[in-house]
């Protein structure tokens, strides 16, 4: 009880946000840095992943292996990549940009590959029959899947904007560095300012991508500033010798006997965080989703609730984690709540869509009996939406397991915290050992979830759909 009172007291110290002109002006630097490194990284990601995706999509020789590598890279938490890049190229946006470029090249190439694989075979065969070269066939594939490329591509961009704050938090510069600074300095009113700025940027990017999807040509306008960002944020100091030396010192991975003895408890803690975080997210998301479904709630309720869900979602788990570790102290509780808050945002939106997309006929039929709105929802909307809600929740659980390791790194316990402490104390061999364990865990859950979905006959969509 006492600790709750303290937590609430700390929460109050986050208000009001510092909106002074002086601070907002000082923030233009970090904001530009975050946006710049996102733009630069995503330019690389799109440029590399488009040909790569085409190659995998057309099932060129070795494309299975490429797919495997892409999945493997994607299973490395983005925060870990950023830490490694800081070690290799030094503090600042260069490290963050490289980390994001690697992660999102893998992520986007994987999605593009899957998209191109599902392209309608008939028109492709027709093109091949004309004697077109593989390159011509590939070029033909792009317009065929343009809509999907644009929507997934912009989706990944939005996700990258959020990730830029995460990689910033470990030395990648930009808003993330500033955020950690304000938290370490107990400067919580400015932390709130930063959260608001982040929510604002994500909303702006969201609005922009919606427009760009309608007019894809305008995308070309974004290339020069992205190139400029790439140039500005290129690593100042990159010594291959140093990198090779550092990587060499990280192998072979090793853990001492104490660490091995603690391992099962750490893994259990991470899994518990993921599980309870998903449950918490679902519990928060459910009523909010009902309130924000346009087919259920009146617009004056639905719209503000929808905005609230978007705000929850705009702040990544790690950032919620940083804030909560400051408020509630360390431990899996903070991590669980952090996962819960972000999950509530994403699940809320997806649940609401599930409610909106149910077959309207049974709903009308129940409403026609003169049933109260509550009864209509309980007897028709909910049971009709239960299958998609189940799929979304399972995906979220899978995603949260990955994020539980990342949230752990900022002090929320579990294997993530062990990894981060090993890294911070320069025990890089132990760090790599923890990294490999995490990586295997994530890959295993990926596989498990795919198998479960296949057995249940549930629709399969890429995990990115629901981040």
């Amino acid at each position, binding site marked *: 009880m006492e600790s709750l009172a303290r937590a609430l007291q700390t929460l109050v110290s986050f208000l009001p946000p510092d909106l002074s002109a002086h601070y907002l002006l000082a923030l233009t630097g970090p904001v530009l840095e975050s946006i710049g490194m996102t733009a630069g990284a995503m330019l690389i990601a799109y440029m590399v992943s488009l040909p790569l995706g085409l190659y995998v999509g057309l099932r060129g020789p070795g494309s299975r292996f490429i797919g495997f590598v892409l999945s493997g890279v994607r299973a490395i938490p983005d925060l870990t990549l950023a830490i490694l890049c800081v070690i290799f190229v*030094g*503090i*600042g946006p260069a490290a963050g940009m490289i980390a994001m470029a690697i992660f999102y090249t893998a992520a986007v190439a994987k999605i593009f590959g899957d998209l191109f694989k599902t392209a309608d075979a008939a028109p492709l065969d027709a093109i091949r029959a004309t004697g077109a070269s593989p390159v011509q066939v590939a070029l033909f594939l792009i317009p065929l899947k343009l809509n999907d490329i644009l929507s997934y591509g912009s989706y990944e961009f939005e996700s990258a904007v959020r990730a830029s704050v995460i990689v910033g938090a470990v030395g990648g510069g930009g808003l993330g560095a500033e955020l950690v600074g*304000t938290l*370490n300095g107990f400067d919580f009113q400015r932390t709130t300012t930063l959260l608001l700025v982040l929510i604002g940027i994500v909303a702006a990017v969201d609005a922009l991508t919606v427009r760009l999807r309608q007019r894809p040509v305008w995308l070309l306008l974004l290339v020069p500033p992205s190139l400029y960002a790439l140039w500005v944020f290129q690593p*100042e100091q990159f010594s*291959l010798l140093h990198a090779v030396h550092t990587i060499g010192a990280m192998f072979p991975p090793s853990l001492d006997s104490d660490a091995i003895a603690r391992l099962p408890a750490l893994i259990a803690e991470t899994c518990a965080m993921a599980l309870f975080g998903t449950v918490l997210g679902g519990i928060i998301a459910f009523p909010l989703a009902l309130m924000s479904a346009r087919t259920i709630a009146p617009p004056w309720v639905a719209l503000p609730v929808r905005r609230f869900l978007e705000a929850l979602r705009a702040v990544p788990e790690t950032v919620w984690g940083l804030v909560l570790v400051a408020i509630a102290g*360390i431990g899996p509780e903070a991590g669980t709540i952090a996962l819960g808050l972000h999950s509530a945002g994403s699940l809320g939106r997806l649940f609401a869509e599930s409610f909106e997309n149910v077959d309207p006929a049974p709903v009308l039929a129940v409403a026609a009996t003169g049933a109260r709105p509550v009864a209509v929802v309980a007897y028709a909307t909910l049971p009709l939406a239960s299958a998609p809600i189940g799929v979304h929740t399972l995906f979220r659980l899978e995603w949260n397991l990955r994020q539980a390791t990342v949230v752990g790194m900022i002090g929320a316990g579990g294997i993530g915290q062990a990894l981060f402490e090993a890294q911070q104390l320069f025990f890089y061999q132990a760090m790599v050992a923890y990294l490999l364990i995490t990586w295997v865990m994530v890959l295993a859950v990926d596989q498990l979830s795919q198998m479960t979905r296949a057995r249940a006959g549930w629709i399969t969509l890429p995990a990115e759909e629901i981040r």
Partner: protein
Amino acid sequence: MSQRLPAMTSGRRAFVGAVFATAALQSMRAVADEALIRIGMIPDAGATQVSVEEKAPLQAYLSKALKRPVRLVIPTNYNATVEGLGNGSLDVAYLGGLTYIKAHQQYGAVPLVQREADRQFHALFITQAASSIHSLQDLKGKTFAFGDINSTSGHLIPYQDMKSAGINPDRDLRFRYTGSHAATVKAVETGAVDAGACDETVFKEMIASGKADAAKLRVFATSAPFADYVWAARPGLDAATQQAIIRAFTNLTPENDKSILDILRGTKFVPATDAEYATVRNIARSLKML
């Protein structure tokens, strides 16, 4: 070397070529940027845009004293500062005792200069004024704040003192890393934790400037003296620049440079040596932090 080269596979040769090409490019760029000196500081008192701005007079002073442009960087954690010296993105860094030892061991960082007080530094154990904690033994079952995991006065020394007092931090209490001394002081003041350990100069400065409330806080234990902070250079930095930096700091006087010394929370700077850190090094080894 010339005899072994033909035996190399083409892949290996390409790799070596790439290394040399990169090295050549690096040296070219280094020449272009030679004028700039990059100085990093561990975020012992937080790292924000505003805290960087607050240190602008220091940057201006160093720039003037070295007759070269200086860029001041405050990374988000101690580890990144050390790695900065290793990968060459920093020329000089302000490090804590433990971080210096690591930078020296890993990358051969050279100790340059430190405050007089750093040779006989103290860690403070603090709690709320009205709390029931009066000795290290009272910490049993309480919540506790360390600073950064690599902090000497915020983690290593207090950890050692607790162990000597018969308290095992890993079992007997719930602790967290706040990331900086300022955060530890605030965490104790607001009651987010029952007690914490921090750097004495940060604590005094926060009380003096009103950033922390003296009426709410109480020091209940002080560590034995040990060697802490030091300004260190990456091994490749030329001797002349190293000497210039030492001079820039030792020339500071309370009469002429009060604003700079306030930022550095010191009164007098003296040259530093590696020998001072033998004790801290042994403690770090015994606690498996090295």
